[in-house]
């Protein structure tokens, strides 16, 4: 892999401007799934570089409200999603059959910023429909233990333990195979994001109470014992920021977290590397994103961290020294369309970024 990612560029733009796309996950190295605010999941088969941007081929139907989280199981066989309908749903990631159906890729309202004042720019009627034929698939099963919006979803590397967290401050540890709840406990604030350590022993929660005017008491970062739910560390006092995403590296050597639960003015997208055992801040990665970071993912090479932001940038960071390798995209410091989520293929060659206008951008990283 080229360490500078100098040749990285957008190779496909997948249009889906029905609504904001909040989550994205690759299925293998040649398929990508994305989930939007309406509760739809679409899957695209990605052609070789240079070909025309493809239409979606599958629609995963079942969620009834916004989907906040989407991930693929380590064996690549199961897609797992969760969101505001209080459910966690499991989908066959490889299935290609289903009921024939059609999706309209541009229904509803064109989303554009209205300048913050008048709100009179009612978008004209929907443009002529752009449709795609798909197969419609149902979930394999669902988990229903939450009573509030789910923002935290993580799977242990062996795929046996699923952890979820919600706005009622509830964290649930599930047995993935049986769907049984092994354990549940209350954290202090609403769960905005969480992850489980590769050794399966620690859950880190990024907690918040989302308000325009930030108060230090409205955010927290805590580590919990997966078996007992006991607090292992609390670094809220040190970080004092509303976080958007938290993630362990696959080898367990790194724990990364980024600020951005709410869109805020200025350099409000700080990125930190924490000690995976204690949560202590080891390094702040600079410069931060403007208006907030939204997601982060470790590259499979084990050497790089990628973050996305409301400034429409994807930042590539070198883990060894914390230096910024490069930015992908054009930076916007104003009120532009944010990037909400990113994902990288297992082979590290493609990156997907989902944005506020409903596009999924596919970057080649090679």
């Amino acid at each position: 892999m080229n360490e500078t990612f100098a040749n990285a560029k957008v190779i496909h733009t997948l249009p889906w401007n029905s609504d904001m796309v909040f989550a994205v996950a690759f299925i293998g190295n040649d398929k990508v799934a994305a989930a939007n605010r309406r509760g739809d999941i679409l899957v695209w088969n990605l052609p070789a570089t240079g070909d025309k941007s493809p239409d979606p081929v599958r629609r995963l139907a079942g969620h009834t409200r916004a989907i906040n989280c989407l991930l693929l199981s380590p064996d690549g066989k199961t897609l797992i999603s969760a969101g505001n309908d209080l459910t966690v749903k499991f989908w066959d990631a490889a299935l290609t059959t289903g009921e024939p159906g059609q999706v309209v890729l541009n229904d509803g309202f064109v989303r554009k910023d209205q300048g913050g004042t008048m709100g009179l720019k009612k978008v004209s009627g929907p443009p002529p429909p752009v449709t795609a034929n798909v197969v419609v698939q149902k979930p394999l099963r669902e988990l229903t233990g939450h009573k509030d919006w789910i923002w935290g979803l993580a799977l242990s590397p062996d795929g046996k333990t699923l952890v979820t967290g919600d706005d009622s401050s509830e964290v649930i540890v599930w047995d993935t195979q049986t769907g049984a709840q092994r354990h549940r406990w209350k954290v202090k604030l609403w769960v905005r994001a969480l992850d489980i350590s590769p050794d399966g022993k620690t859950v880190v929660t990024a907690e918040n109470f989302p308000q325009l005017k930030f108060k230090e008491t409205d955010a927290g970062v805590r580590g919990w014992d997966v078996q007992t739910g006991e607090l292992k560390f609390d670094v809220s006092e040190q970080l004092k920021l509303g976080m958007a995403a938290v993630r362990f590296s696959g080898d367990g050597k790194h724990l990364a977290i980024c600020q951005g639960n709410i869109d805020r003015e200025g350099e409000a997208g700080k990125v930190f590397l924490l000690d995976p055992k204690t949560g202590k801040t080891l390094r702040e990665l600079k410069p931060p994103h403007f208006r907030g970071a939204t997601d982060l993912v470790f590259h499979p090479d084990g050497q790089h961290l990628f973050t996305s932001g409301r400034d429409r940038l994807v930042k590539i960071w070198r883990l060894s020294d914390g230096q910024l390798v490069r930015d992908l995209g054009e930076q916007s410091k104003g009120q532009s369309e944010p990037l909400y989520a990113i994902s990288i293929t297992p082979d590290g060659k493609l990156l997907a970024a989902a944005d506020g206008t409903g596009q999924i951008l596919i970057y080649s990283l090679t």
Partner: protein
Amino acid sequence: MDPDQQSATCNLRHHISRRSLLKGMVVTAGGMAVANWGALFHSQTIAAEAKRTGKRCIMLYMEGGVSQIDTFDMKPGRPTAGEFRPMPTNVPGIQVCEFLPNIARHADKLGIIRSMRTKTPDHGPGGYYMHTGYHPSERFPHPEAGAMIAKYCENPESELPSFVKIGSGSGIYGAGYLGPQYDPFVLGDDGKLPGFASPSVPPEIQERRGELLSFMEQQFAEQRPGRPFASHRTAELRTIRLMRARQAFDVSGEWEKAKDRYGDSQFGRGCFTALKLVEAGVSFVEVGHRGHDTHMNNFPISKALYSTMDPAWGSLLDDLTERGLLDDTLVVWTSEFGRTPAINVRAGRDHFGRAWTVVLAGGGIKGGQYYGSTDRDGFEVAENPVSEADYLATIYKAMGVDHRAKHYLGTRPIWATEEGSRPIKELLG
């Protein structure tokens, strides 16, 4: 109060009691009265009417512009619907946001005006408009509703201020031509008194000091009848009286028992303080709820906002009902404007004045009904548009205040609400 500002409905030479003198009334040889923080220029007729009605008002002001589509004018199934769903209430046919379960219990008390059409989508002018009924560009010192209600509904015998604001985030628009005695007394966001309200000497000494000050300043006032002196004197007297009555603001003991119901938040405590103040006789209390200007992340932020707003508002209605105060206490839920039906790319809603919602309850309002409606996506009023002036006229009418009461600034007449304003008779009992 400026000597050239007077109410056409009030007589300047009305009764002067010893008590009112003790409360700071200063009457000049020429019969001119200066401020006494609420009791002056108050005709016997109006005072008697205020005692008769005993009307009070609590305004819950959602600072920043509150979303109508996410609360009381939901559009399920439409592209503008957002992420919240409606839930049933105790009135068939009325639905509210799923995150307002405590308000849903009180729908039979709510008059929900879904057809506000207001003229400015900017915070400052919008706040001024919704508090006064007039556009700020007129360069005329209009009083905000709290001052007008204080003037006509206050208990002149009360030691308490007649107009209290809990938090100043919604703006301080003042008493305008009604004079400084009707200016709001502003508490902290949590309803706690400012530091100056704690006296440094015993109350009896403080009172004697006030009397002596009144005596000494009498001659001075006769020679200097302008507003600066009146305002200065008013501030002094307000402070002295506040020190006497400050225990009414101390809800800390009862709050410990109430906070589980109201929610342990600034707004919760503010609503509970408002309850205690109207119970003690304050005519108008405004409680601000910050943070509704959700240009971004509208749904998680609004959900968090409603988690503090709903239990406080619901418990306030519970307690007013249980104490037999709701019939005489108008509870207004309002803002400077609404928010756009369309959701922007930052998952936010922007400012919107063309079709939005305010809610009235108690104070004789006929509850359990909608007034007005919007089109299917919420972009336009479909029926019965309501202006800022109509809205305030409805509040004044419910409070027993003539919405067309005429006052004068010099020789210029000015009315409580502008010409053409109409109270919504369908909501008034």
